[in-house]
């Protein structure tokens, strides 16, 4: 039996509640949450979908560190599992937080391939070598779970900061050899509340469940913005 201690919120007040969950070998934290919902208290509210670490719904703080509940084995955490919703997000109910702002920031960096010589009616194959693909592939692995945003000190101090995931999405397209829209994205990334807010706490890369290296992407984006800024000053 393992104790699940969950920080709950019912719309008015925050309170802690503990549940005893019977476990078996290989059981994940998410399975524990479903056990509580289906057998003890069905008002427990959390997000979950794929249970295989690819949809990004179930990111929560487990014993203080943001992780995907579906990928975390109960045995690796211990006998007392403390669950809280992610930091830097507004809590809606129990472990569910507001995500509209997060997706709006992602949209703001123009995270789509910009290229004028392709047509919708007659698409054509674009050439990209395996090494060009490797340049940016790791940054495409973002599942938008929000773990990086919840540990970013810049995002903690300013609500309107873009955050690691959005900036990694911006870099992913700048580094894609098929893209021609770098200028549009650089002008967004070089604003005050974007790339220059990062002072290298590097925690985002440590908690990313897909090891997509957001801190590296932000620094490479910073390099691009700096080079662009110098070029424009020297009128190159």
């Amino acid at each position, binding site marked *: 039996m393992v104790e699940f201690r969950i920080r709950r919120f019912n719309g008015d007040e925050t309170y802690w509640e503990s549940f005893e969950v019977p476990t078996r070998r290989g059981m994940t934290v998410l399975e524990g949450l479903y056990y509580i919902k289906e057998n003890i208290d069905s008002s427990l509210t959390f997000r979950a979908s794929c249970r295989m670490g690819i949809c990004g719904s179930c990111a929560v703080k487990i*014993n*203080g*560190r943001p992780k995907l509940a579906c990928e975390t084995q109960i045995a690796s955490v211990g006998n007392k599992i403390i669950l809280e919703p992610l*930091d830097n997000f507004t809590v809606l109910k129990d472990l569910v937080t507001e995500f509209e702002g997060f997706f709006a920031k992602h949209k703001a960096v123009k995270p789509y391939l910009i290229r004028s010589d392709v047509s919708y009616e007659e698409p054509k194959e674009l050439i990209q070598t395996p090494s060009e693909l490797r340049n940016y592939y790791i940054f495409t692995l973002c599942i938008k779970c929000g773990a990086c945003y919840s*540990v970013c*000190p810049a995002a*903690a*101090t*300013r609500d309107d900061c873009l955050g690691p995931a959005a900036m990694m999405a911006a870099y992913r397209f700048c580094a894609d050899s098929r893209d021609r829209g770098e200028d549009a994205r650089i002008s967004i990334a070089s604003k005050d509340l974007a790339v220059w807010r990062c*002072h*290298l*706490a*590097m*925690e985002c890369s*440590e908690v990313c469940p897909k090891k997509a*290296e957001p*801190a*590296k992407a932000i*620094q*490479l984006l*910073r*390099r691009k913005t*700096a080079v662009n800024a110098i070029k424009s000053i020297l009128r190159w």
Partner: protein
Amino acid sequence: MPILDWFKFTNRSVYSLAFAIQRITGIILLFYLCLHLIFLTSLTDRTGETYESLIAVTVSKQFLLFDILLVLCGVSHGINGLRVIVHEFGFVYEYRKVVIGFAFFLVIVAWLYASYVMYCLVGG
């Protein structure tokens, strides 16, 4: 207060700890900088008396402990700052574990050396 999140390092990696220490030592050094400016502006009395009296108080065996701690702040802020500069713009990010380990080693070496020099300067 959101700004207190800068100093969160429980359940975080060593990089967040370095980040928090950078902010704390930065504030301490800022305070020291003001003190340093006060010391130096005291030279405007052209005789050097105020300066010499201040120095007599602060460069002494009683103040050695504060000085050693101050040097630790300065050295770690500087060397960690260099580490941050190396990683910014995306260089050797894959070797960040090695880099932070090496930076920590340099901090200890530089601090011990500086402490030894100060210890000698205040007379054994």
